[in-house]
Protein backbone atom coordinates (compact mmCIF):
# COMPACT_ATOMS: atom_id res chain seq x y z
CA UNK A 1 0.00 0.00 0.00
CA UNK A 2 1.51 3.37 -0.99
CA UNK A 3 1.63 6.08 1.61
CA UNK A 4 -0.33 9.29 1.47
CA UNK A 5 2.90 11.14 0.97
CA UNK A 6 2.66 10.27 -2.71
CA UNK A 7 -0.60 12.17 -3.05
CA UNK A 8 1.09 15.52 -2.42
CA UNK A 9 3.69 16.17 -5.10
CA UNK A 10 6.71 18.04 -3.79
CA UNK A 11 9.47 19.70 -5.75
CA UNK A 12 12.52 17.40 -5.77
CA UNK A 13 15.56 18.91 -4.12
CA UNK A 14 18.45 19.12 -6.55
CA UNK A 15 22.10 18.58 -5.83
CA UNK A 16 24.25 21.68 -5.80
CA UNK A 17 26.99 21.85 -8.45
CA UNK A 18 30.31 23.65 -8.69
CA UNK A 19 29.93 27.44 -8.91
CA UNK A 20 30.69 28.89 -12.36
CA UNK A 21 33.65 30.89 -11.09
CA UNK A 22 35.28 27.77 -9.65
CA UNK A 23 34.67 25.51 -12.61
CA UNK A 24 38.40 25.06 -13.20
CA UNK A 25 38.54 22.88 -10.07
CA UNK A 26 36.26 20.27 -11.63
CA UNK A 27 33.25 18.61 -10.02
CA UNK A 28 32.11 19.72 -6.59
CA UNK A 29 33.04 16.95 -4.16
CA UNK A 30 30.15 15.38 -2.23
CA UNK A 31 30.27 13.01 0.73
CA UNK A 32 30.50 9.89 -1.42
CA UNK A 33 33.47 11.37 -3.32
CA UNK A 34 35.14 12.30 -0.05
CA UNK A 35 34.65 8.78 1.29
CA UNK A 36 36.29 7.25 -1.76
CA UNK A 37 39.25 9.63 -1.55
CA UNK A 38 39.66 9.06 2.19
CA UNK A 39 39.58 5.28 1.83
CA UNK A 40 42.28 5.35 -0.83
CA UNK A 41 44.44 7.61 1.33
CA UNK A 42 44.06 5.45 4.44
CA UNK A 43 44.76 2.28 2.52
CA UNK A 44 48.06 3.75 1.30
CA UNK A 45 48.84 5.00 4.79
CA UNK A 46 48.31 1.57 6.27
CA UNK A 47 50.44 -0.12 3.64
CA UNK A 48 53.33 2.22 4.37
CA UNK A 49 52.86 1.67 8.09
CA UNK A 50 53.07 -2.09 7.67
CA UNK A 51 56.21 -1.78 5.57
CA UNK A 52 57.82 0.43 8.21
CA UNK A 53 56.99 -2.14 10.85
CA UNK A 54 58.51 -4.92 8.79
CA UNK A 55 61.68 -2.93 8.25
CA UNK A 56 61.91 -2.11 11.97
CA UNK A 57 61.46 -5.76 13.02
CA UNK A 58 63.90 -7.11 10.46
CA UNK A 59 65.95 -10.11 11.55
CA UNK A 60 69.61 -9.02 11.21
CA UNK A 61 70.70 -12.66 10.82
CA UNK A 62 68.51 -13.46 7.86
CA UNK A 63 70.12 -15.16 4.88
CA UNK A 64 68.92 -15.81 1.35
CA UNK A 65 71.07 -17.34 -1.37
CA UNK A 66 70.54 -14.36 -3.67
CA UNK A 67 72.51 -12.33 -1.10
CA UNK A 68 75.69 -13.91 -2.43
CA UNK A 69 75.26 -12.03 -5.72
CA UNK A 70 73.44 -8.81 -4.72
CA UNK A 71 74.86 -5.97 -2.62
CA UNK A 72 73.64 -3.21 -0.41
CA UNK A 73 75.35 0.17 -0.81
CA UNK A 74 74.58 2.60 2.04
CA UNK A 75 71.45 0.72 2.95
CA UNK A 76 70.15 0.83 -0.62
CA UNK A 77 69.83 -2.42 -2.51
CA UNK A 78 72.07 -2.36 -5.58
CA UNK A 79 70.70 -4.12 -8.65
CA UNK A 80 72.58 -7.03 -10.10
CA UNK A 81 74.72 -6.52 -13.11
CA UNK A 82 72.61 -5.71 -16.12
CA UNK A 83 75.43 -5.45 -18.61
CA UNK A 84 74.77 -8.79 -20.28
CA UNK A 85 71.05 -8.83 -19.93
CA UNK A 86 70.38 -8.47 -23.66
CA UNK A 87 72.48 -9.78 -26.48
CA UNK A 88 73.57 -7.56 -29.36
CA UNK A 89 70.69 -8.48 -31.70
CA UNK A 90 68.10 -7.60 -29.12
CA UNK A 91 69.92 -4.36 -28.35
CA UNK A 92 70.06 -3.46 -32.02
CA UNK A 93 66.36 -4.14 -32.34
CA UNK A 94 65.53 -2.01 -29.33
CA UNK A 95 67.71 0.81 -30.57
CA UNK A 96 66.01 0.68 -33.95
CA UNK A 97 62.66 0.84 -32.21
CA UNK A 98 63.83 3.87 -30.26
CA UNK A 99 64.93 5.57 -33.45
CA UNK A 100 61.62 4.74 -35.06
CA UNK A 101 59.77 6.30 -32.15
CA UNK A 102 61.84 9.46 -32.26
CA UNK A 103 61.34 9.70 -36.01
CA UNK A 104 57.61 9.29 -35.56
CA UNK A 105 57.47 12.08 -33.00
CA UNK A 106 59.68 14.26 -35.20
CA UNK A 107 57.41 13.84 -38.21
CA UNK A 108 54.28 14.47 -36.19
CA UNK A 109 55.77 17.69 -34.81
CA UNK A 110 56.73 18.78 -38.32
CA UNK A 111 53.18 18.27 -39.52
CA UNK A 112 51.83 20.25 -36.58
CA UNK A 113 54.26 23.06 -37.36
CA UNK A 114 53.11 23.02 -40.95
CA UNK A 115 49.49 23.33 -39.88
CA UNK A 116 50.26 26.11 -37.43
CA UNK A 117 52.48 28.03 -39.83
CA UNK A 118 49.72 27.95 -42.42
CA UNK A 119 47.55 30.11 -40.16
CA UNK A 120 50.19 32.21 -38.41
CA UNK A 121 51.61 34.62 -40.91
CA UNK A 122 53.31 37.06 -38.49
CA UNK A 123 51.45 39.97 -39.99
CA UNK A 124 52.39 42.38 -37.23
CA UNK A 125 56.12 42.22 -37.75
CA UNK A 126 57.71 44.36 -40.40
CA UNK A 127 58.15 42.37 -43.59
CA UNK A 128 61.79 41.53 -43.95
CA UNK A 129 61.63 41.16 -47.73
CA UNK A 130 63.42 43.36 -50.14
CA UNK A 131 60.92 45.71 -51.70
CA UNK A 132 62.06 47.48 -54.84
CA UNK A 133 60.14 50.37 -56.36
CA UNK A 134 60.61 51.46 -59.93
CA UNK A 135 60.52 55.18 -60.57
CA UNK A 136 60.72 57.29 -63.69
CA UNK A 137 62.98 60.00 -62.33
CA UNK A 138 64.42 61.36 -59.14
CA UNK A 139 61.34 63.32 -58.05
CA UNK A 140 59.16 60.28 -58.34
CA UNK A 141 61.75 58.28 -56.41
CA UNK A 142 61.70 60.86 -53.62
CA UNK A 143 57.92 60.86 -53.60
CA UNK A 144 57.77 57.08 -53.35
CA UNK A 145 60.31 57.18 -50.56
CA UNK A 146 58.36 59.73 -48.56
CA UNK A 147 55.13 57.86 -49.12
CA UNK A 148 56.55 54.60 -47.91
CA UNK A 149 58.01 56.31 -44.84
CA UNK A 150 54.65 57.80 -44.00
CA UNK A 151 53.00 54.47 -44.44
CA UNK A 152 55.09 52.89 -41.70
CA UNK A 153 53.54 49.99 -39.90
CA UNK A 154 50.12 48.54 -40.53
CA UNK A 155 47.37 49.97 -38.35
CA UNK A 156 45.85 46.58 -37.70
CA UNK A 157 47.73 45.83 -34.52
CA UNK A 158 46.38 48.75 -32.52
CA UNK A 159 42.68 48.18 -32.38
CA UNK A 160 42.73 44.49 -31.53
CA UNK A 161 41.12 43.58 -28.24
CA UNK A 162 43.36 42.37 -25.43
CA UNK A 163 42.11 38.83 -25.16
CA UNK A 164 42.45 38.35 -28.91
CA UNK A 165 45.99 39.68 -28.74
CA UNK A 166 46.83 37.28 -25.93
CA UNK A 167 45.39 34.36 -27.91
CA UNK A 168 47.55 35.26 -30.87
CA UNK A 169 50.60 35.52 -28.62
CA UNK A 170 49.86 32.08 -27.20
CA UNK A 171 49.64 30.63 -30.69
CA UNK A 172 52.97 32.14 -31.69
CA UNK A 173 54.60 30.83 -28.54
CA UNK A 174 53.26 27.37 -29.28
CA UNK A 175 54.72 27.56 -32.79
CA UNK A 176 58.08 28.64 -31.40
CA UNK A 177 58.06 25.84 -28.81
CA UNK A 178 57.26 23.26 -31.45
CA UNK A 179 60.07 24.52 -33.68
CA UNK A 180 62.50 24.18 -30.77
CA UNK A 181 61.26 20.70 -30.11
CA UNK A 182 61.78 19.73 -33.74
CA UNK A 183 65.38 20.91 -33.67
CA UNK A 184 66.05 18.97 -30.45
CA UNK A 185 64.44 15.82 -31.83
CA UNK A 186 66.47 16.13 -35.01
CA UNK A 187 69.67 16.39 -33.00
CA UNK A 188 68.69 13.36 -30.97
CA UNK A 189 67.85 11.38 -34.06
CA UNK A 190 71.17 12.28 -35.68
CA UNK A 191 73.03 11.19 -32.55
CA UNK A 192 71.26 7.87 -32.46
CA UNK A 193 71.87 7.33 -36.17
CA UNK A 194 75.57 8.04 -35.67
CA UNK A 195 75.78 5.57 -32.78
CA UNK A 196 74.11 2.94 -34.93
CA UNK A 197 76.55 3.53 -37.79
CA UNK A 198 79.47 3.26 -35.37
CA UNK A 199 78.33 -0.20 -34.33
CA UNK A 200 78.46 -1.39 -37.91
CA UNK A 201 81.48 -2.92 -39.54
CA UNK A 202 82.99 -0.21 -41.76
CA UNK A 203 86.51 1.06 -41.18
CA UNK A 204 86.44 4.50 -39.64
CA UNK A 205 88.55 6.86 -37.67
CA UNK A 206 87.92 9.76 -35.37
CA UNK A 207 89.02 13.13 -36.73
CA UNK A 208 91.38 15.19 -34.60
CA UNK A 209 90.75 18.80 -33.64
CA UNK A 210 93.11 20.29 -36.17
CA UNK A 211 91.56 18.35 -39.03
CA UNK A 212 88.08 19.66 -38.41
CA UNK A 213 86.85 22.65 -40.34
CA UNK A 214 84.48 23.75 -37.57
CA UNK A 215 85.27 22.06 -34.25
CA UNK A 216 82.20 20.71 -32.47
CA UNK A 217 81.70 19.34 -28.99
CA UNK A 218 80.83 15.84 -30.23
CA UNK A 219 83.44 13.68 -31.99
CA UNK A 220 83.41 13.56 -35.78
CA UNK A 221 84.10 10.32 -37.61
CA UNK A 222 85.27 9.66 -41.10
CA UNK A 223 84.68 6.37 -42.87
CA UNK A 224 87.10 4.82 -45.33
CA UNK A 225 85.51 4.76 -48.75
CA UNK A 226 84.78 1.17 -49.68
CA UNK A 227 82.70 -0.12 -52.49
CA UNK A 228 79.47 -1.64 -51.22
CA UNK A 229 78.54 -4.94 -52.76
Amino acid at each position, binding site marked *: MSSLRNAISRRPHKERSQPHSRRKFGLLEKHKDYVERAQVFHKKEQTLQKLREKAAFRNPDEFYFRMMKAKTVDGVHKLENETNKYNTDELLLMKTQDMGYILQKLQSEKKKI*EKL*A*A*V*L*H*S*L*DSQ*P*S*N*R*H*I*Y*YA*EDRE*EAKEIQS*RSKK*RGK*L*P*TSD*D*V*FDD*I*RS*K*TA*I*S*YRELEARRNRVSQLEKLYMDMALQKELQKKGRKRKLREDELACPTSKPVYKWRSERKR
Partner: protein
Amino acid sequence: MRPPRGRGSGGGFRGRGDGGKGRGGGGGGRGSDRGSAMGGRGGGCGVFIAKGKEDAIVTKNLVPGEVVYNEKRIYVHNEDATKVEYRVWNPFWSKLATAIIGGVDEIWIKPGARVLYLGAASGTTVSHVSDIVGPTGVVYAVAFSHRSGRDLVNMAKKHTNVIPIIEDARHPSKYRILVGMVDVIFSDVAQPDWARILALNASYFLKAGGHFVISIKANYIDSTQPVEAVFQSEPFEQVMLEPYERDHACVVGAIVSQRNPKLLSEMLGGIGSM
Protein backbone atom coordinates in the same frame (compact mmCIF):
# COMPACT_ATOMS: atom_id res chain seq x y z
CA MET B 1 52.79 60.89 -63.76
CA ARG B 2 51.62 57.77 -62.12
CA PRO B 3 48.34 58.08 -60.24
CA PRO B 4 48.79 57.93 -56.48
CA ARG B 5 48.20 54.49 -55.14
CA GLY B 6 46.17 53.96 -52.01
CA ARG B 7 47.74 52.11 -49.19
CA GLY B 8 47.00 48.51 -48.66
CA SER B 9 47.04 46.02 -51.45
CA GLY B 10 44.15 45.25 -53.67
CA GLY B 11 41.77 48.08 -53.12
CA GLY B 12 42.59 49.02 -49.58
CA PHE B 13 42.04 45.76 -47.89
CA ARG B 14 44.35 46.12 -44.99
CA GLY B 15 42.27 48.73 -43.30
CA ARG B 16 40.27 48.45 -40.15
CA GLY B 17 36.72 47.39 -40.39
CA ASP B 18 34.39 46.43 -37.66
CA GLY B 19 34.42 42.70 -37.50
CA GLY B 20 35.18 43.01 -33.82
CA LYS B 21 31.55 42.65 -32.88
CA GLY B 22 31.87 39.06 -33.81
CA ARG B 23 33.80 38.41 -30.64
CA GLY B 24 30.84 37.67 -28.52
CA GLY B 25 29.58 34.68 -30.37
CA GLY B 26 30.79 31.19 -29.74
CA GLY B 27 32.96 29.52 -32.30
CA GLY B 28 31.31 27.22 -34.75
CA GLY B 29 32.71 23.78 -35.48
CA ARG B 30 36.34 22.91 -35.93
CA GLY B 31 38.47 25.48 -37.62
CA SER B 32 36.40 28.33 -36.34
CA ASP B 33 37.58 30.89 -33.90
CA ARG B 34 36.25 33.53 -31.67
CA GLY B 35 38.34 36.14 -33.32
CA SER B 36 37.83 39.12 -35.45
CA ALA B 37 38.26 39.64 -39.13
CA MET B 38 39.17 43.11 -40.14
CA GLY B 39 37.86 44.28 -43.43
CA GLY B 40 39.06 46.99 -45.72
CA ARG B 41 38.10 50.55 -45.56
CA GLY B 42 36.63 52.66 -48.29
CA GLY B 43 34.20 50.29 -49.89
CA GLY B 44 35.29 47.21 -51.79
CA CYS B 45 37.65 45.05 -49.79
CA GLY B 46 38.93 41.74 -50.97
CA VAL B 47 41.45 40.41 -48.51
CA PHE B 48 40.96 40.43 -44.76
CA ILE B 49 43.12 39.83 -41.73
CA ALA B 50 41.91 37.45 -39.08
CA LYS B 51 43.16 37.76 -35.54
CA GLY B 52 42.44 35.32 -32.79
CA LYS B 53 44.08 32.00 -32.36
CA GLU B 54 45.15 32.56 -35.94
CA ASP B 55 46.93 35.55 -37.36
CA ALA B 56 46.33 35.10 -41.03
CA ILE B 57 45.18 36.69 -44.23
CA VAL B 58 41.84 35.35 -45.28
CA THR B 59 39.37 35.80 -48.09
CA LYS B 60 35.63 35.72 -47.81
CA ASN B 61 34.39 32.40 -49.03
CA LEU B 62 32.41 32.72 -52.22
CA VAL B 63 30.91 29.27 -51.65
CA PRO B 64 30.28 28.97 -47.90
CA GLY B 65 30.81 25.48 -46.61
CA GLU B 66 33.25 24.37 -49.31
CA VAL B 67 37.02 24.10 -49.06
CA VAL B 68 39.30 23.69 -52.00
CA TYR B 69 42.53 22.31 -50.56
CA ASN B 70 41.65 21.49 -46.93
CA GLU B 71 42.41 24.98 -45.74
CA LYS B 72 41.20 26.21 -42.39
CA ARG B 73 38.05 28.27 -42.18
CA ILE B 74 37.30 31.07 -39.77
CA TYR B 75 33.82 32.09 -38.75
CA VAL B 76 32.91 35.54 -37.55
CA HIS B 77 29.55 36.23 -36.00
CA ASN B 78 27.66 39.37 -36.92
CA GLU B 79 25.36 41.31 -34.63
CA ASP B 80 22.34 39.66 -36.18
CA ALA B 81 23.67 36.20 -35.31
CA THR B 82 24.62 35.28 -38.89
CA LYS B 83 27.98 33.69 -39.52
CA VAL B 84 30.42 34.92 -42.12
CA GLU B 85 32.88 32.35 -43.36
CA TYR B 86 36.44 33.18 -44.38
CA ARG B 87 39.08 30.87 -45.78
CA VAL B 88 42.68 31.14 -44.68
CA TRP B 89 45.07 31.92 -47.49
CA ASN B 90 48.19 29.84 -47.10
CA PRO B 91 51.37 31.66 -48.18
CA PHE B 92 53.28 28.39 -48.46
CA TRP B 93 50.95 27.31 -51.23
CA SER B 94 50.30 30.62 -52.93
CA LYS B 95 52.77 33.16 -54.24
CA LEU B 96 50.17 35.90 -54.34
CA ALA B 97 49.56 35.47 -50.60
CA THR B 98 53.29 35.65 -50.02
CA ALA B 99 53.48 38.86 -52.00
CA ILE B 100 50.64 40.41 -50.00
CA ILE B 101 52.24 39.44 -46.70
CA GLY B 102 55.56 40.71 -48.00
CA GLY B 103 54.02 44.13 -48.30
CA VAL B 104 53.23 44.73 -51.94
CA ASP B 105 51.30 47.97 -52.23
CA GLU B 106 48.66 47.06 -54.73
CA ILE B 107 47.75 43.81 -56.33
CA TRP B 108 45.06 45.41 -58.54
CA ILE B 109 42.79 42.44 -57.97
CA LYS B 110 39.66 43.81 -56.36
CA PRO B 111 35.97 42.98 -56.22
CA GLY B 112 34.45 43.19 -59.66
CA ALA B 113 37.75 42.92 -61.50
CA ARG B 114 38.32 40.66 -64.46
CA VAL B 115 41.49 38.66 -64.04
CA LEU B 116 43.41 36.45 -66.42
CA TYR B 117 45.33 33.88 -64.41
CA LEU B 118 48.14 32.14 -66.26
CA GLY B 119 49.62 29.08 -64.65
CA ALA B 120 46.59 28.14 -62.61
CA ALA B 121 47.71 24.56 -61.80
CA SER B 122 45.17 22.98 -59.46
CA GLY B 123 43.38 26.20 -58.70
CA THR B 124 44.33 26.77 -55.07
CA THR B 125 45.26 30.42 -55.59
CA VAL B 126 42.60 30.82 -58.27
CA SER B 127 39.94 30.04 -55.68
CA HIS B 128 41.18 32.87 -53.48
CA VAL B 129 41.33 35.27 -56.43
CA SER B 130 37.79 34.25 -57.26
CA ASP B 131 36.78 34.99 -53.65
CA ILE B 132 38.30 38.44 -53.95
CA VAL B 133 36.73 39.42 -57.26
CA GLY B 134 33.39 38.17 -56.06
CA PRO B 135 30.33 37.31 -58.12
CA THR B 136 30.64 40.46 -60.22
CA GLY B 137 34.17 39.66 -61.36
CA VAL B 138 35.53 36.94 -63.59
CA VAL B 139 38.67 34.84 -63.38
CA TYR B 140 39.95 33.18 -66.54
CA ALA B 141 42.24 30.42 -65.30
CA VAL B 142 44.66 28.91 -67.79
CA ALA B 143 46.37 25.64 -66.89
CA PHE B 144 48.27 23.31 -69.15
CA SER B 145 48.51 20.05 -67.21
CA HIS B 146 45.49 17.81 -67.60
CA ARG B 147 45.81 16.34 -64.14
CA SER B 148 45.71 19.69 -62.40
CA GLY B 149 43.18 20.79 -64.94
CA ARG B 150 40.79 18.25 -63.55
CA ASP B 151 41.04 19.77 -60.08
CA LEU B 152 40.69 23.21 -61.63
CA VAL B 153 37.51 22.24 -63.42
CA ASN B 154 36.06 20.71 -60.28
CA MET B 155 36.82 23.87 -58.39
CA ALA B 156 35.25 25.95 -61.14
CA LYS B 157 32.06 23.95 -60.84
CA LYS B 158 31.58 25.41 -57.38
CA HIS B 159 33.13 28.84 -57.95
CA THR B 160 31.00 30.00 -60.81
CA ASN B 161 33.05 33.10 -61.61
CA VAL B 162 36.05 30.97 -62.64
CA ILE B 163 36.37 29.96 -66.27
CA PRO B 164 38.87 27.10 -66.56
CA ILE B 165 40.93 26.89 -69.74
CA ILE B 166 43.10 23.82 -70.18
CA GLU B 167 45.44 25.11 -72.82
CA ASP B 168 49.02 26.18 -73.30
CA ALA B 169 49.40 29.82 -72.31
CA ARG B 170 51.98 30.22 -75.08
CA HIS B 171 49.20 30.20 -77.67
CA PRO B 172 46.52 32.63 -76.54
CA SER B 173 44.97 32.51 -79.99
CA LYS B 174 43.72 29.04 -79.13
CA TYR B 175 41.53 30.30 -76.31
CA ARG B 176 40.80 33.77 -77.56
CA ILE B 177 37.13 32.93 -77.98
CA LEU B 178 36.71 32.12 -74.32
CA VAL B 179 38.36 35.19 -72.85
CA GLY B 180 37.17 38.77 -72.90
CA MET B 181 39.14 41.91 -72.03
CA VAL B 182 40.66 41.72 -68.59
CA ASP B 183 41.83 44.29 -66.07
CA VAL B 184 44.69 42.35 -64.54
CA ILE B 185 46.91 39.53 -65.71
CA PHE B 186 48.40 37.34 -63.00
CA SER B 187 51.14 35.05 -64.18
CA ASP B 188 52.84 32.23 -62.30
CA VAL B 189 53.98 30.14 -65.22
CA ALA B 190 57.54 29.19 -64.13
CA GLN B 191 58.76 29.07 -67.69
CA PRO B 192 61.89 30.69 -69.10
CA ASP B 193 59.91 32.51 -71.78
CA TRP B 194 57.51 34.05 -69.31
CA ALA B 195 58.01 37.50 -70.84
CA ARG B 196 56.83 36.38 -74.24
CA ILE B 197 53.87 34.56 -72.73
CA LEU B 198 52.90 37.66 -70.80
CA ALA B 199 53.41 39.90 -73.81
CA LEU B 200 51.30 37.72 -76.09
CA ASN B 201 48.47 37.35 -73.64
CA ALA B 202 48.53 41.05 -72.84
CA SER B 203 48.35 41.92 -76.52
CA TYR B 204 45.28 39.74 -76.90
CA PHE B 205 43.38 40.32 -73.70
CA LEU B 206 44.65 43.09 -71.45
CA LYS B 207 42.76 46.36 -71.57
CA ALA B 208 44.54 49.64 -72.16
CA GLY B 209 45.93 50.79 -68.84
CA GLY B 210 45.64 47.35 -67.38
CA HIS B 211 48.09 45.89 -64.89
CA PHE B 212 50.09 42.73 -64.52
CA VAL B 213 51.32 40.85 -61.49
CA ILE B 214 53.91 38.18 -62.12
CA SER B 215 55.84 35.80 -59.98
CA ILE B 216 59.22 34.89 -61.39
CA LYS B 217 62.53 33.42 -60.35
CA ALA B 218 64.80 36.18 -59.16
CA ASN B 219 67.52 35.42 -61.65
CA TYR B 220 65.13 36.22 -64.47
CA ILE B 221 64.63 39.76 -63.17
CA ASP B 222 67.00 41.40 -65.55
CA SER B 223 64.94 40.01 -68.36
CA THR B 224 62.12 42.42 -67.51
CA GLN B 225 63.80 44.59 -70.06
CA PRO B 226 62.39 42.88 -73.14
CA VAL B 227 58.88 43.18 -71.75
CA GLU B 228 59.40 46.88 -71.28
CA ALA B 229 60.76 47.18 -74.77
CA VAL B 230 57.83 45.45 -76.39
CA PHE B 231 55.00 46.92 -74.46
CA GLN B 232 56.17 50.08 -72.86
CA SER B 233 55.19 48.43 -69.65
CA GLU B 234 56.24 49.94 -66.40
CA PRO B 235 57.06 47.82 -63.45
CA PHE B 236 55.91 49.57 -60.30
CA GLU B 237 57.36 47.48 -57.57
CA GLN B 238 59.01 44.20 -56.84
CA VAL B 239 58.86 42.17 -53.67
CA MET B 240 61.07 39.20 -52.86
CA LEU B 241 58.98 36.28 -51.72
CA GLU B 242 61.06 35.31 -48.70
CA PRO B 243 60.67 33.50 -46.30
CA TYR B 244 58.06 31.36 -47.97
CA GLU B 245 59.80 30.90 -51.32
CA ARG B 246 63.44 31.00 -52.18
CA ASP B 247 64.80 33.18 -54.97
CA HIS B 248 61.40 34.20 -56.20
CA ALA B 249 60.08 37.67 -56.70
CA CYS B 250 56.73 39.20 -57.46
CA VAL B 251 56.68 42.10 -59.88
CA VAL B 252 53.69 44.39 -60.23
CA GLY B 253 53.38 46.77 -63.10
CA ALA B 254 51.21 48.33 -65.73
CA ILE B 255 50.97 48.24 -69.46
CA VAL B 256 50.85 51.88 -70.23
CA SER B 257 50.60 52.42 -73.92
CA GLN B 258 48.68 50.69 -76.62
CA ARG B 259 49.85 47.59 -78.33
CA ASN B 260 52.15 48.22 -81.22
CA PRO B 261 51.62 45.37 -83.65
CA LYS B 262 54.65 46.11 -85.79
CA LEU B 263 56.94 46.41 -82.81
CA LEU B 264 55.41 43.30 -81.36
CA SER B 265 56.10 41.18 -84.41
CA GLU B 266 59.67 42.47 -84.59
CA MET B 267 60.33 41.79 -80.95
CA LEU B 268 58.65 38.42 -80.81
CA GLY B 269 61.32 37.05 -83.06
CA GLY B 270 63.95 38.45 -80.72
CA ILE B 271 62.60 37.54 -77.30
CA GLY B 272 62.61 33.78 -77.58
CA SER B 273 63.83 32.04 -74.49
CA MET B 274 65.75 33.83 -71.77
